[in-house]
C-alpha cells in the first residue's frame, strides 16, 4: 500500500494520511468503542484522516493481508 484516494483530493501519498482506529461494531458499548479492535485477516474497516491535506475524516476498507484498498469514502452524514 503506497497511496490512498482522498474523496476530496484524489490519490495522495500514504504519508499524508493518519490511521486512527478500526471501526467499532455497530451498537457496541463505550468500552468496546474505546479499547476493542476488530481483527480480521481479510477485511478491515478503519477511520483515517487526511491530516496533511484537506483534513477530512474517511472510512477506509482494506484487506490487511494483501494491503489492497477496497473502498474509501467520506466519513460523516449517515455513515456510522
Amino acid at each position, binding site marked *: 500500500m503506497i497511496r490512498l484516494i482522498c474523496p476530496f483530493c484524489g490519490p495522495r501519498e500514504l504519508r499524508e494520511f493518519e490511521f486512527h482506529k478500526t471501526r467499532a461494531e455497530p451498537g457496541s458499548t463505550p468500552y468496546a468503542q474505546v479499547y*476493542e479492535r476488530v*481483527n480480521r485477516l481479510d477485511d478491515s474497516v478503519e477511520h483515517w484522516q487526511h491530516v496533511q491535506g484537506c483534513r477530512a475524516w474517511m472510512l477506509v476498507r*482494506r484487506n*490487511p493481508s494483501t494491503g489492497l484498498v477496497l473502498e474509501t469514502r467520506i466519513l460523516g452524514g449517515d455513515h456510522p
Partner: protein
Amino acid sequence: MKGPSPRYSALALLRARFAGGGFWRPLWTGRRLQGAYDVVVVGAGGHGLATAFHLARDHGLKVAVLEKRLVGYGNVGRNTTIVRSNYLLPENHYFYEDSLRRWETLSKDLNYNVMYSPRGVADLLLSDGDMIDAARRGNAMRLAGIDCELMDRAALDRFCPELVASRDRRFPIVGALVQRRGGSVRHDAVAWGYARAATALGVDIIEDCDVTGVRTAAGIATGVETSRGYVQANRIVFATAGHTGVIGTMLDMTLPIETHLLQAMVTEPIKPLLNTVLVYVHPAHGETYVLQSDKGGLVMGGHLDGFPSYTRDGQWTRMEDVVQGAIALLPQVAGVKIVRQWAGTNDMTMDGSPIIDRLRYDNVFVNAGWCYGGFKTIPASGAACAQLVASGTAPDLIKAYKLSRFETGHLLDERGGGPFPVRL
C-alpha cells in the same frame, strides 16, 4: 544413529573429534504429532517455546508446540535483538528485570550459547524536559534495584565516543539514560536454544501445523482442530504474536489489540564502530534504534508502520525515517549500504503492555500483546506463563497483565499515549 542433540561441553567436542560423522544431531528432531497432550502451545516463537520449555522442565507436563510455519519464523527471528529493563511502572520494571536476570544465565540454563552481550542501552535525550523525564524513570528504576545512569553530554561522549560526530547539530543530544546491563542477545539462538532444550525434555514441536479452531464441551476447551487433525488438550496456550487479534476473532472475542508492522533493517558489515545500543526518539525523524551485530552490520529499527497489516512487507516512508535518524546520530555511516530489510507483525495492546491471562475459557490461556518489546521478555514470560498454566494462578510478576484491566481501568500505559498504538 538417531537421538537427541548431545549436551554441549568441552568433553563433547573431544568425543566428537573421535566419533566421526553423525555425532552432532539436529537441534530439534521432527517429532510425530500424538493424539492427546497435557498442554498444547500454539506458536513456536520465543514465547511459545519458552512456555513449553518451562511447562516440561518445571512442571513435568506433556507438551506439544504447534507451529503454522517454521520454528522462529515470526518475531523472534525478526526483532532487533535488544534486551533491557528500563521501564517506569513498577508492574513493568520488576517483570522486565526478572527477564534481564534470566538472560544473564540463559546460555547455561539452555546449554546453548545465546550470546548475551551486556553492552548497554542508551536512551538519548534531546532537551531539559527529556532529562527531567529520564531522571524520573531512572529514579523509579533505582528504587527497584535496577541499574541505570543518567549521563550528561560529556559522560555520554566518554561512554559512546562515536556520537561525537553528531555534536554540532540543530537538535543536539544533551544526555542519555543508560542501562549498562541492557544490550543484545542473538535472537535466532534463543529460538533454537529453547527448541533444542524443550525437545530434550520430550516436548513435541510440530511445524507446518495450522490451528484452525478450538473444540469445546461443557464450557471448557477440549482440544484444537489443526491442519493435521484433531489434538486433545487439557490446556491450550496461544502464543501467536501478531495474530492474537485473529485468534480472538476465532474464539468470537474482540480483543484490545491491533496488529501493526514493525520494520528492521541491516547494513553491510563494517568494522567495529558502535559499542552500545542507541535509542533515539525525535519529532523530526520519528524513532531510530541502532546497534552493531557481531557480524558487523548495523541493525536498525524504528516506529510502527502506522496501520493494521499482516503483509510483513513494510512501508518505504518508515524505512526512510529510520535511516534519517541513524545518519543524524552517526553521520560517519551515511555511505554504508543497507542489504536487508524486513517487517514483523506486532500485537499492539491499547496500553502498550502485555496480556498473560485466560482467554474466554478456564483452560485456554494467552501469552500475547508484546507490542514491539516481546523479545526481551521471553525468559520471564515463559517461566511465568508456564506457572499460570500449570497451577491456574498467576504469579505475582504477571498479576497486572490481566485482560480485564482494560475494563477495570488498571491500565499499564508506560507511554501515556492512550489507546492509540501508532502515536509516539
